[in-house]
C-alpha cells in the first residue's frame, strides 16, 4: 500500500503479516515502520507496504481532561508550569518522553488539595529544562512577581535537570519575597502510575501555603512515597540522575517536610516580607571551568577571552595546577573575576591551608566557604550585573540568600 500522507492517528487499518490479515489502529510512523495498535492493546511495527487504511471517520478517542476552574475556599496558590518530566508524556516522533501533559491531571488526583487551596493555573512555558536559558529565568521571575500580587503562594513546576539553577537564579533576582516560591518536578513522568509527581506537587502546593519567604525546592526525601523535603534552592543539588530522592540539601538539613497532608518547618527560614523586590539584570558572560589534570593553558585562555567572570571547579579545597597562575594574575588584573569552587561539591573551599591555595588567592582568585559551584555561577551573574565592580568580592562573600553555609556539621554529608 502506498503511504497515505494524510494518515491520521486513530485511523482504522487492515494489515497483513506473514500472509494473514489483521485489524488495528494507526498510531504513527517511526522510521521505516508504522506503529499499529492491535486489538489486545499491543503496538506492533509493520512495514507500510503491508498496511491498508480503511475509510472510516476517525474517532477522537482522547478523553478531554476537564479543566478545573479555581475552586476550593483556602489560600490562592499560583501554579506556574514550565515543562519538564512532571508534564511529560510519550513523544511519538522520537518514541521518547516529551512535555505535553496537562498538570490538572495531577492536581485532580488530590481532591483534598483542590478543596484546601484555590489553584491558579499559569501555563508559562513548555520545555525540557536542559533548554532553559537565563532569559527564561527572567521571564519566570517576572511571572512570579505578577502572580505574587494575585495569590498567596507560588509553585513552579520545572524539569529536574536544571531546576537548581533556576531556583538559584530566582533566589538572587527576587529579594524580600512576599510569598513562598516552591519549585517542584518529577523524576518519573506523570504518565506512570509510580510517578513521584503526585506527591511532589501535593507537597509543593502545601509548602506554598506557609509563611516562608524563600525560593525552595520540594522533592521526595527518600525512595518511598513518604515525605517531601523542602530544600533551600541555593543549597540544593540534583545528586542522582534517576532516583526520586535525587535532590539533596547540601550540608544542611531540609527546611521542612510534607507528609500525609501536613507540612512541618523545622530549620530556621526567612519569613515572607511585605513586598517582593525584583532585580533581573544578569551578566551572561560568565563561564564554568572544570579543572582536571592535563588541562592546557589554552583551555583557560580561550575562556578568559570570552568571559568576564569564570567559576572554576577546582580540586579539593579549591586548587588547580600552578601553571595557570600567570594567566589568572593577568586576567584579574585586567578586571576579570575568578571564583574558586570545589568539584568535591561537599565541604568548603579554603585557600588559606595549602601553598597552592595561598598562591591562587594572591593571584586574585575569590573564594567563599562552601557555596555550590552552580549557585556560585548564578550568583556571579547576578552580582556582576547589579553591584559595582569593586564590591564583587565583598558581595560574593556576603550571605545573600543562605547560599553560604558557615556551620557544617557531621550529619551534613
Amino acid at each position: 500500500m502506498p503511504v497515505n500522507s494524510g494518515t491520521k492517528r486513530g485511523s482504522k487499518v487492515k494489515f497483513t503479516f506473514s500472509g494473514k490479515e489483521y485489524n488495528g489502529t494507526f498510531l504513527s510512523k517511526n522510521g521505516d515502520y508504522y506503529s499499529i495498535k492491535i486489538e489486545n492493546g499491543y503496538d506492533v511495527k509493520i512495514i507500510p507496504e503491508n498496511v491498508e487504511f480503511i475509510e472510516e471517520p476517525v474517532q477522537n478517542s482522547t478523553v478531554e481532561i476537564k479543566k478545573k476552574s479555581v475552586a476550593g475556599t483556602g489560600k490562592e496558590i499560583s501554579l506556574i508550569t514550565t515543562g519538564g518530566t512532571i508534564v511529560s508524556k510519550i513523544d511519538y516522533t522520537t518514541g521518547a518522553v516529551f512535555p505535553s501533559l496537562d498538570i490538572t491531571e495531577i492536581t485532580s488526583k488530590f481532591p483534598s488539595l483542590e478543596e484546601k487551596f484555590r489553584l491558579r493555573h499559569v501555563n508559562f512555558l513548555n520545555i525540557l529544562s536542559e533548554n532553559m536559558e537565563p532569559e527564561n529565568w527572567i521571564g519566570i521571575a517576572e511571572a512570579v512577581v505578577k502572580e505574587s500580587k494575585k495569590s498567596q503562594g507560588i509553585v513552579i513546576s520545572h524539569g529536574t535537570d536544571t531546576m537548581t539553577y533556576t531556583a538559584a537564579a530566582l533566589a538572587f533576582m527576587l529579594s524580600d519575597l512576599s510569598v513562598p516560591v516552591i519549585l517542584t518536578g518529577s523524576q518519573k513522568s506523570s504518565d506512570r502510575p509510580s510517578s513521584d509527581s503526585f506527591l511532589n506537587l501535593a507537597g509543593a502546593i502545601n509548602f506554598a501555603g506557609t509563611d516562608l519567604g524563600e525560593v525552595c525546592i520540594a522533592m521526595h526525601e527518600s525512595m518511598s512515597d513518604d515525605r517531601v523535603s523542602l530544600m533551600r534552592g541555593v543549597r540544593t543539588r540534583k545528586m542522582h540522575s534517576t532516583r526520586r530522592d535525587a535532590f539533596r540539601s547540601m550540608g544542611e538539613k531540609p527546611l521542612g517536610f510534607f507528609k500525609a497532608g501536613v507540612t512541618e518547618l523545622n530549620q530556621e527560614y526567612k519569613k515572607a516580607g511585605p513586598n517582593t523586590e525584583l532585580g533581573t539584570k544578569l551578566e551572561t558572560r560568565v563561564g564554568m571551568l572544570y579543572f582536571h589534570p592535563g588541562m592546557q593553558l589554552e583551555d583557560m585562555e580561550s575562556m578568559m577571552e570570552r568571559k568576564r567572570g569564570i567559576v572554576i571547579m577546582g580540586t579539593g579545597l579549591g586548587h588547580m595546577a600552578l601553571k595557570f597562575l600567570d594567566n589568572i594574575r593577568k586576567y584579574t588584573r585586567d578586571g576579570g573575576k575568578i571564583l574558586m569552587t570545589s568539584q568535591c561539591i561537599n565541604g568548603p573551599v579554603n585557600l588559606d591551608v595549602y601553598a597552592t591555595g595561598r598562591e591562587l588567592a594572591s593571584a586574585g582568585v575569590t573564594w567563599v566557604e562552601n557555596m555550590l559551584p552552580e549557585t556560585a555561577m548564578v550568583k556571579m551573574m547576578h552580582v556582576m550585573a547589579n553591584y559595582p565592580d569593586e564590591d564583587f568580592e565583598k558581595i560574593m562573600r556576603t550571605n545573600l540568600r543562605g547560599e553560604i553555609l558557615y556551620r557544617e556539621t557531621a550529619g551534613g554529608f
Partner: protein
Amino acid sequence: MDKFPENAMIGLEVHMQVNVGKLFCHCPPEGQETGFHVDRHLRTTSGEGGIVDISAKSEEMKNRSIRYLETSNSCLVDLDEKPPETMNRDALSVAMALGNSFGTMVLDRISVMRKIVIDGSNTSGFQRTSVVGFGGTIKGKSASSVITTICLEEDSCRKIEDGDSIVTYSLERLGIPLIEISTNPDMKTPEEAMEIAREIGNRIMIMGMLRKGADSIRQDVNFSMGFGRVEIKGVSKLTEMKNILVREAERQDALQEAVKKWKETGGFGDIDFKRNDQVVEKWSSKMILKALEEGKGVYISILKNGRGFLKNGRYTMGREIADALKLIGIRGIIHFDELPAYGINEDERDRILKYAGGGSKDSFLLLLVDPGREQDASLVIRERLEKLFSLNFSETRAAMEDGTTRYMRPLSGSGRMYPETDIPIIKVDRDLMETARELTPGTLQDAIKMLQDKFGLSGQDAETIVLRGYMNTFSKLASSYDGKTISRILLQKMPEAEKKFGKTISLEELENIVSICSKNKYGRYSLEWAVDMISSGKMNLQKIMEGNTLMPLETETMGKYLEKVSSEEASNLSLLQKKISEEFARPVDMSMLAGMVKERQRK
C-alpha cells in the same frame, strides 16, 4: 448441572519463566531479602488514548500503600528508580525459539509495551511486555489450538502479605522473563485445555530453559458459556484446571438461575444503608459489640425479594456481594439467609428485618463499617448486582487453592496498554534468528525418540529426562560419557541422595565431576561416590578435584586389604565395597572388586 456446558469456550494464557537472568536489568534470578524496603502509592494515569483503564481504577479505589522488600537480586530498575536496560537477548531468543516450534510468525521489530497493573505487583505500576509473534498452532493428541500471540514479559512481584492498609511484595521475582503463549478459545472441555497446556509446557521443558521453582509455569484460563468471558488467573497446577473449570461452570449456571428467579419476583430494588446501632438494644453478638467498641456503626439496608438467593443451596449471591466489598476493604457483611449465626439469634434477625422494612420475601444486608464507608458499600453492591442481573458475568477472577474462584476485578481493557518509552524498538537481527533456530525444540515425541536412538535410553527414562528439564544437561553430559549412567545418576542416584541427606549435588558440580571421569575414563562408581560425598557434605568439589580422589582405589591397595578380609565378609560384595570405600575415602570399582574376590576364592 450434570455435564460440562456444550457451548463452553476455553482459551489459555500459559506463562513460563525463562532461566536466563532478569529481562531488563543485570540481576541474577535468585536472591534473599536484604531488610531494606520502600513504601509506595500507585495512581492511575491516562493511557495512550487518554482512557483510564477500569481495572486500574478499581485498584486505585483501595488506596492502600504498597511495601516492596528489597532482595539481593534486585536493583534500582526493580525499585523503579532507574530506566530499564535493553531487553535480555537470551530471553528473546528463547521466546522466538518457542514460537518457531509452533509455527508462530515472529515480528521483525519488537516494541515493548507497558500494561498498567496497579495492584502493586509491579513497582512501576505497569508490566513491561512485548508481542514476539502471531499465530501458529498447538497440536495435542485430540485437540488443537491456534496461538493468538506469543509475548515476552517481565514477571511481577510475589505477594508476601495482604493487609487492609498495606500490601507487601518481595522484589525477588520481579523482572524474571516470562513467555506468555495465548490461544484462541478453541477448547471445549477441561480435558482439551489440559492437553494443550501440557503440550505448551513440554516444549520449554524440552529446551531445558524453564526456571526451577514452584510457580515457574502458571496458567490463566479464559472461559465462557454464554454469559461473557471470565478470565481465571493463576492456575498454577495443571491438575487443578479441571476442577476449577467445572466449578466455574457450576457457579455461572447457578447464578443465572438465581438471577432469573429473583428477577421474576421483582428484582432487588434500591440499596440504602441507614445507621441504627440500637436496632437491637442489647446485642448478644460479640462481633457486633466489638465493632461498636471500635467506633464502627451498624448499617442496615433492605434487599428486596432477596430471601433465599444469597446463601441457599446452589445460590450464593451473598458471596458475590462480599467479594466485591472486600476489594474496597470492607469486610463483615451479614444477610438474612445466613442467620442465625455470628451470635445473632432469630429474634434479633427478625427485629433487623423489621427495621429494614422487609417482608417475607425480602432479605437485608447488615454492615459493620466506619461511618461514611456505607456510601462506598452501597455503590459497589448496587453495581455488582446490576452487573449480575444483566447476565453479563465477564470479569477477572482469581483461582483459589480450594478450586473455587473469587472476583478480582473487571476485565482489563486494551486501554491499559501503552508504549514503554525507555526502551528503543528492538530489531530482530540475523544473530537472534540464528540463535533461536538452534534452540527451537521439537515435540516431546521427537525428543524422546532422539534420546532413545542416540543414547539407548528406555522410553520411560527419556520422557522423565525431558519433563524434569534435564534435556540440556543430559545431552551435554551424555556426549562425553555413557548416557545410561548419566540417566541413572540424574533420575535415581541424585533423588536418592536428596532424600537421604536433604540435599544433593548441583548440576554444575555434576558437570565438573563427569568431565574428570570422562577425561580419566573412571567408571560409574567414581561418579556415584562423588554424588554421595558431596551430598553428604563429607567432601566438597574443590577437595575432590585437588586430591584427585575420583580415581578408583588402586589394585594393590585393594589386594592388600582383601588379604585381611574373612571369606564371610568377602561374600557380601556391596557391603565390602562400601567398607573399603569408607576406609580409604576413595571410590571402589565394583567389577574390579568382584574380579579380585573371585580370583582370591579361586586361589
